[in-house]
C-alpha cells in the first residue's frame, strides 16, 4: 500500500515538474501578450486591449495583428496596429451577429503566422448575443496542458471596503512594495464586473502555430502590412502560367505596385505606412491574355491543436447575470449619446516626391483649353508627342521618345486614376469635361522588372469611372493600420449624469513602473462582483496576476 502511494506521489511530482518546465518554455517563447479591457462582452461591443511586446529584435517587425476567433479557430475579425516602445494598443469590434459563446483574442506578428511552432498567448472573451436568450449550456475551452503559471502575487490590492452600493466611489491601494520594479515589464490595473463563469473557465490560453497560406516566408512587417490573394483564370479556375497583379489605391492615385503570382496563383503586397480604411484596386494580366478573376484571402492564425470543449450547464444565477448584462447593454445604447464608429480616414504619407513613373514630360489641364469631345482630339490638340490612331476599329497609342526622336514601337503604360488599363477604348470616349489632368512621360521607364515604353496617366474628375467599365478589376475596402484612439475609462462626469449607468469596465490604467499608488473609480448601477486586478508580464516574459473581489449590493 505504501509502495503504491509512493508511486502515485512520484508520478504526481513528475507531472508537476514536467508542467512547470513546459510552462517556462512556453512563456519564454511567447513574443506578445494581450490584455483586453474585459473578459466578457455583449455582441456589438467594442473591446479595447493592450499588447505587451516581449521581443528584443528591434530591427524586425513592429506590426501587431490582433484577431478574434471562435473556439474552433474560425476568424471573426482582425485588426492591425503599430507597436511603439514594446507596446501596442487598439480596439476590436465584436460583431452584433456573433452567437453566445467563448471566443479568443490573440496577438501575433506576421512572421509568427508563417512559422510553425510559435507560441501564441490568447485571452478568452465570453460573448453574449443580444438576441439569444434562454441559454442552457455553453461550450468552454479546456487547455490541454497547463501552459502557464501565474506568479504568486506579491502585489497587494487593498480596497477601502469589501461591499459597496451602486454608483459609489471605490478607493483601493495598490501596494507594489514587495515587487522589484526591474522585474516588471508591463502592468495593467483594471476594475471590471465579473461572474463565476468567466472566473472559472476564462483567462489565459496558449496555442502553437502552424504555417498559414498564402504567406510570404521570412518577411517582417515594418510599418506596414501584407495583403495576399489569389488570381485564377476565369473560365477554368486554374492558375495562369504567368500572371501579373497590379495594386492601386483609390485614395492615392500616384501609388502602384505589382506582384508576379506564384505557380498556384497566390500573390502578396506590402502596403507601408497606410492608416485607416482604404480602398485598393487589383488588376491582373496574364501572359496569354486570359480573363482573370482575383480574390483577396485573409488567412487566420492557424494553430496546431484546437482546444477541447467542455459543455457547462448554466445555472439560474449565471443565467440571470447574462440576461442582466444583455439588457444593460441594450439600455446603455438607448440612454447613451449616439456614438457612431465611422471608418477611420485613410492616411498615407507619400513615399517620394516623384511618382513611380518619374518626372512627367508634360502635365496638361484640359480646363485651360477649349472643350474637346474625345481623346483623339485631345491627343491631337493638347498632347504633343502622343500619337492616337483609330483604324479598323482598333485604337493604337504611341509616345514619342524625344531623346531619340522616334516613336516607341510598343503601347505606353496607360493609367486611368492610377489603375493600369490595357484597352485603349476606355480612353476613346473621354473628353475634356471628364478629365482632371493628364501626365505623360516620354522616356523608356523601368519599374522594378517592368519596362514602360512611355507612360500616359489620365486623372479623371469621376473617381469610379474605371470600376464601372472594367469587369476584371477588383475593388476592396481594407482596414489598414489602426489609427490611435483615446478612450477615457474613469470619466467622473458619467457618475453625475442623471441617466442610468450600465458600465461593466470601471477603471483601467497602464503602468510603466511598478510604483505603489491609490486608485479611485465610480461604480455603475450594475450589481454583482467587481474584480480589481493588477495583471502584467515580468521582464523575462511571465504573466502575473493579482486580484481582489468587492461586492456591489
Amino acid at each position: 500500500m505504501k509502495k503504491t502511494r509512493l508511486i502515485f506521489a512520484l508520478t504526481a511530482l513528475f507531472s508537476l515538474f514536467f508542467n512547470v518546465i513546459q510552462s517556462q518554455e512556453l512563456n519564454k517563447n511567447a513574443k506578445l501578450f494581450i490584455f483586453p479591457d474585459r473578459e466578457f462582452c455583449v455582441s456589438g461591443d467594442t473591446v479595447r486591449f493592450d499588447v505587451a511586446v516581449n521581443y528584443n529584435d528591434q530591427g524586425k517587425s513592429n506590426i501587431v495583428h490582433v484577431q478574434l476567433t471562435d473556439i474552433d479557430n474560425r476568424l471573426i475579425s482582425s485588426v492591425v496596429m503599430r507597436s511603439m516602445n514594446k507596446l501596442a494598443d487598439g480596439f476590436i469590434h465584436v460583431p452584433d451577429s456573433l452567437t453566445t459563446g467563448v471566443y479568443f483574442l490573440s496577438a501575433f506578428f506576421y512572421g509568427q503566422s508563417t512559422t510553425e511552432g510559435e507560441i501564441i498567448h490568447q485571452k478568452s472573451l465570453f460573448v453574449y448575443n443580444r438576441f439569444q436568450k434562454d441559454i442552457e449550456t455553453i461550450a468552454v475551452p479546456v487547455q490541454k496542458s497547463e501552459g502557464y503559471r501565474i506568479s504568486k502575487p506579491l502585489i497587494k490590492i487593498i480596497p477601502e471596503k469589501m461591499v459597496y452600493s451602486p454608483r459609489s466611489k471605490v478607493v483601493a491601494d495598490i501596494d507594489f512594495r514587495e515587487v522589484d520594479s526591474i522585474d516588471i515589464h508591463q502592468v495593467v490595473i483594471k476594475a471590471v464586473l465579473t461572474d463565476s463563469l468567466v472566473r472559472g473557465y476564462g483567462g489565459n490560453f496558449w496555442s502553437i502555430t502552424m504555417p498559414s497560406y498564402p504567406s510570404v516566408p521570412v518577411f517582417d512587417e515594418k510599418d506596414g502590412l501584407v495583403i495576399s490573394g489569389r488570381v485564377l483564370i476565369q473560365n477554368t479556375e486554374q492558375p495562369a502560367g504567368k500572371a501579373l497583379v497590379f495594386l492601386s489605391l483609390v485614395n492615392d492615385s500616384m501609388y502602384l505596385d505589382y506582384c508576379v503570382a506564384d505557380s498556384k496563383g497566390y500573390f502578396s503586397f506590402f502596403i507601408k505606412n497606410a492608416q485607416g480604411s482604404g480602398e485598393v484596386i487589383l488588376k491582373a494580366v496574364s501572359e496569354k491574355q486570359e480573363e482573370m478573376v482575383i480574390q483577396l484571402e485573409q488567412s487566420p492564425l492557424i494553430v496546431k491543436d484546437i482546444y477541447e470543449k467542455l459543455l457547462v450547464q448554466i445555472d439560474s444565477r449565471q443565467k440571470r447575470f447574462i440576461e442582466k448584462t444583455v439588457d444593460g447593454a441594450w439600455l446603455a445604447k438607448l440612454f447613451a449619446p449616439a456614438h457612431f464608429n465611422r471608418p477611420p480616414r485613410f492616411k498615407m504619407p507619400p513615399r517620394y516626391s516623384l511618382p513611380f513613373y518619374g518626372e512627367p514630360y508634360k502635365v496638361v489641364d484640359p480646363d485651360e483649353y477649349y472643350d474637346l469631345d474625345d481623346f483623339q482630339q485631345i491627343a491631337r490638340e493638347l498632347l504633343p508627342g502622343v500619337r492616337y490612331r483609330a483604324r479598323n476599329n482598333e485604337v493604337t497609342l504611341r509616345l514619342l521618345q524625344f531623346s531619340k526622336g522616334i516613336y516607341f514601337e510598343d503601347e505606353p503604360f496607360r493609367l486611368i486614376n492610377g489603375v493600369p488599363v490595357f484597352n485603349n477604348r476606355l480612353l476613346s470616349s473621354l473628353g475634356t469635361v471628364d478629365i482632371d489632368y493628364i501626365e505623360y512621360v516620354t522616356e523608356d521607364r523601368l519599374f522594378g522588372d517592368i519596362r514602360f515604353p512611355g507612360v500616359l496617366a489620365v486623372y479623371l474628375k469621376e473617381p469610379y469611372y474605371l470600376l464601372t467599365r472594367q469587369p476584371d478589376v477588383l475593388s476592396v475596402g481594407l482596414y489598414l493600420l489602426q489609427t490611435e484612439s483615446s478612450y477615457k475609462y474613469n470619466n467622473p462626469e458619467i457618475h453625475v449624469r442623471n441617466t442610468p449607468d450600465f458600465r461593466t469596465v470601471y477603471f483601467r490604467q497602464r503602468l510603466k513602473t511598478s510604483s505603489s499608488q491609490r486608485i479611485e473609480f465610480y461604480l455603475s448601477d450594475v450589481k454583482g462582483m467587481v474584480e480589481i486586478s493588477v495583471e502584467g508580464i515580468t521582464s523575462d516574459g511571465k504573466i502575473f496576476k493579482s486580484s481582489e473581489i468587492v461586492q456591489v449590493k
Partner: protein
Amino acid sequence: MKGIRFILILMAGYIMMFSVVAQVPSFDWHALGENSNRLEGKLTGTIYQLPVEVSSRHFLHEKFMDGDVLMEDGDLFRNLHLRYLALGDQLAAYNSNLHQMFLVDKKKVSRFTVRNDWGDQKFVKVHLNAGISGQDRFFEIKYEGNRWFLVFHQIIEEKTGIYRNEHGKLRDTILKLRKTYFMYDPATERFRYLYNSRRSFVRLFPENKREVRRLFRRNRLYQFDELEMVHAFKILDEAGFFENN
C-alpha cells in the same frame, strides 16, 4: 494568281493580328518571375542606352560593381549592380532580369555604396546651393563626423588637338575625371571648397592657424593627398576644431 491571293490573305491576316495585339501590354514575361516581387518597393528609373563610341569613359567605375542603395524613405536595396555616371552626376544600375542599364531616379535616392575590389565607396546626395542653380549632387563621402569630407567626381570634356579615336572618328575633345573637394557642415548645410594642400586646411581656421599647423606636423601630414586629407579631417574632429567653427 492563286499564289498572289494566298500571299495577300496572309498579309491581311498578319496586319489584323498585329492590330489585335497592339493593345496588349508589352511586358517582358521572361524577365518577370517571383524574384521580381520585392515587397518593400520597386526600384525605378529611366533606361539608359550608352552610345558605343563613348564606351565606359562616362563612368567613375570601369564596370558594374555590387552595391546598396538607400532611398529617401529609408528603404534599402541590397546587392545591386551599380556604377556612378560621372558625366551627368547620375547613379546607373543594371537590371539583370531585363538586361538593361538604367539611371535610378535621383530624387528618390539618399545614399549608395559601391563595393570596389579595394574597399567600399560611399556616396551621399546633398543639395549644393551653387549660386543661382542649386541642385542635388552625389558626393563621395570620405569622412563623416562633425564635418564631412566630400568629393565630387565629374567627367569633363577638355579641348585637345584633332585626333582620330579608336572608332576612326575625328575628335577634338577628351574626357577627363576631375575631383572637387568640399568640407560640409551637415548642421548648417554649408559647403567650403578645399584643395589638396595644407594651406587650404589651415585657412579654414584663421584664428587657430598655429595650432592646426602644429597638429599636422605632429601627425606627419605633409602630402595632403586624399588619404592624408581624410586623416586631417579625423584629427581635426578629434581635437575639437569643428565644434566651434
